[in-house]
């Protein structure tokens, strides 16, 4: 995103912030469909480890991705207090398993910074599309499309 883009797109957005593996992440609230408590998922055989399984979301089968595991921070310890954020990306609806939901943050797009180039670092970096600061804390904006595995990736 260039400097010019940011000024032209200088509009307010709302972010849903949540805790994953002790870090604070955020999602554009427009992609969030609902937030629900943790229910035990039915595991899928031969699925990647970060795919926790499937749950029944009012009659549809919803795939649950363990976001902490996906971001390379180790599988989450699931308990009653975990939360599933149901997000809709493109044509898929997926449930993200996170530690807790924190807040809704209204910010201006100009307040978003590109993440520093850390291509040497582990894969986590590619899952963050932008960074922003709220009350002195760094919020990582999740690149949701990148966080969800593609078929080829799974096959690999």
């Amino acid at each position, binding site marked *: 995103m260039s400097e010019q883009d940011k000024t032209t797109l200088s509009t307010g957005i709302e972010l849903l912030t949540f805790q994953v593996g002790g870090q604070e992440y955020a999602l554009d609230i427009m992609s969030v469909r609902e937030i629900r408590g943790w229910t035990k998922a*039915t595991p899928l*055989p031969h699925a990647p480890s970060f795919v926790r399984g499937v749950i029944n979301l009012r009659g549809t089968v919803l*795939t649950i991705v363990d976001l902490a595991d996906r971001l390379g921070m180790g599988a989450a310890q699931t308990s009653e207090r975990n939360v599933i954020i149901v997000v809709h990306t493109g044509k898929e609806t*997926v449930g993200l398993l996170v530690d807790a939901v924190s807040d809704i943050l209204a910010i201006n797009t100009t307040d978003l910074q590109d993440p520093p180039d850390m291509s040497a670092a582990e894969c986590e970096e590619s899952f963050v599309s932008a960074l922003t600061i709220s009350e002195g804390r760094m919020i990582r904006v999740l690149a949701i499309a990148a966080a969800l595995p593609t078929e080829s990736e799974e096959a690999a």
Partner: protein
Amino acid sequence: MTDEVDPMIEIRASFFVECEELLESLQDGLQLMDDGQSDDETINVVFRAIHSIKGGAGAFGLEELVRFAHQFESVLDGVRSHTILVDRTDIAIFFQASDILADLVRAARDDEPADQEKVQSILDKLSVILGDNAQEEDEVDASDFQPMGIALDLGLPELSDNESVDTDTQHEPAITTDAISAPGNEKPEHFLEGFKIFFQPDSSLYETGNEPLHLLKLLREIGEVDVSCDTSNLKSLSELEEEKSYLAWTIYLATDEDEASVRDIFDFVADLCKLDISPISNSTLPPSNKTDDAPLSSELSIVPTASETVVPPAPPQISQNTADLPVRKSTVPTLPKTNTDNNKPSNKPRPTVRVDLERIDRLVNLVGELVINQAMISQSVTDADLPSNSAISAGLDEFMQLTRDIQDSVMMIRAQPVKSLFQRMSRIIRESSAMVGKSVCLKTDGENTEVDKTVIERLADPLTHMIRNAVDHGIEKEEDRLNADKPAEGIVTLMASHRSGRVIIEVSDDGAGINRERVLQIAMDKGLVAENSQLSDTEIDNLLFLPGFSTASEVSDLSGRGVGMDVVKSSIIALGGRVTIQSEPGQGTKFTISLPLTLAVLDGMVIEVAKQILVVPLNAIAETLTLTQESVLPLGPNNRVIKVRDVFVPLLDLGSELGFRAPLNNFDNAVVLLISQENGTQAALVVDAIQDQRQVVIKGLQNTFGRPSGVAAATILGDGKIALILDPIDIVSSAESAGNLAQNNLQLTG
């Protein structure tokens, strides 16, 4: 503008939907003709179908389609009026023509160019049939059919004011004006017996593509007619609504036919017009009609200039008598049908509603929810430990019954007769038999068997392939057939029926049967089976389903496109079906496809493995067994087999195959499901427990992560949890392809 464009698109779309139906009835009629069961009404139906297509096509300016339909129609009109006598060769050409017509309709729909060469060749063939009648017919055509196509415009909401003059003038008065101004008016001299017919079409008559002129012509065929047209209702051109009906006719008909046959002519417009038929005797002769054109009102005279270009003079017998219309009041709009109709149910189709498939799918989904919900309630009732005679249990039983009824009814909505599919196959037969130069006919049975719509759609490809195979490999060459004392014409039979909750579709031919020696030899050559294996007949037959198998020694145009029976088999299995072969040397080969009635609900066995609840489709399970440690025999370091009735069957632990747990070592008292594989071999899957056997609602899995291997779909259990529906055959074959079983299994099958 958009207001005007949208309805046209919609109308166009509905025209093509109608075309499909018309093509279907066209096929039906031709089939009846081919079977020698046709009567005049059959030919009428065929004619009408082509005619309606032509009419609609004319309205949308689909010239190619109009041109072809016109020619086809001309021939059939000859057939109808018995000026052309057809034999089966001609009917075969009609079939081809109907195929082309279908092609043209599709080409027009998708805006794609049609195969001109084919079209022309059929057109030529049709002209040959038209032959000697051509001259006469052409004349009649010109006057007879041209306006009809145009008259159909009436049925379509024109963009009246913005339309060009051309279409504006193509309305019904144009035709009648000409009819009126027609010169001939020989008055029948002696009305010994006859009828007086008052005929006033409703607007709907035109909307449905019927044409009064045609009916009048038909009347003319059964006797002498004296026609007068009542134009008194006709409005001036500026007030004229081209979709409305303004004209009425009074016809005096002198004929020997009885009233029923007169009514027959109006049979298919009976609901679309005011019709009064009354017998007349000599005393009630109509007054002699006048010849002057005076009754042509001034309004009408506006029309002809344009109309004459489209409407050539009408046959002379249709004369006019506007001066004097002794209209007898009577209330006979529809009479009880004559008995000729009783054996033709197709005449009066039951009223139907066209519904968006999405809405039905939504209903199906909701009913699925209902089934799940009902399962939840019954579970809570069971958990609550109520006495079995309590009101709630009784109510629940009733509720379950209702749910099942609703489910059945909803599934019936999705069900469609396989007829359309079979008709497509008859085309495949025609095309493929022509390609390999064999004479093959298709016999169908049970084409009213209803099958889920999706199943029908997804069956088309496998069936096409099987039919082609039957024609190419199944049916022998003509001289071989004659040598074997068979009729030169081969027969491929398509049969559909319901059997014990499943749909059975059989494709059989009366050909030479499977050449097992050759099949086995090829399989050995290709390394599909070990050299010198001894296989049973069924096993050899099933080799046809192996990937990479093709028996065609010479690759023909038809088969040998790299798509084998294995693809047929896998697409049928994807539908939850099975396919089996029976073959009798010299007698033919029969493929039997067995399919579930619906794709939305499945009979499953609920099992438990590694504390997970899973569902295995019942149709995959051949039987269930309980093991003892002794019955499990080790084979190599990691594999085990069990002995089932003297056959060794590989044993797999479902839990470890799914990655839920480490492989078991102790199989004492273990429960196994014996899975029938596609190639007829079996495999045994160890499970922890069998819980239940019940219907489950199939829920698709998201494809975010691709389809997990071994899992077909998911379902929701009574407690609201999701259980995976396994694909046991996939599990077994992936375990085999993993290499740990492949070798052993091959020997076992041998």
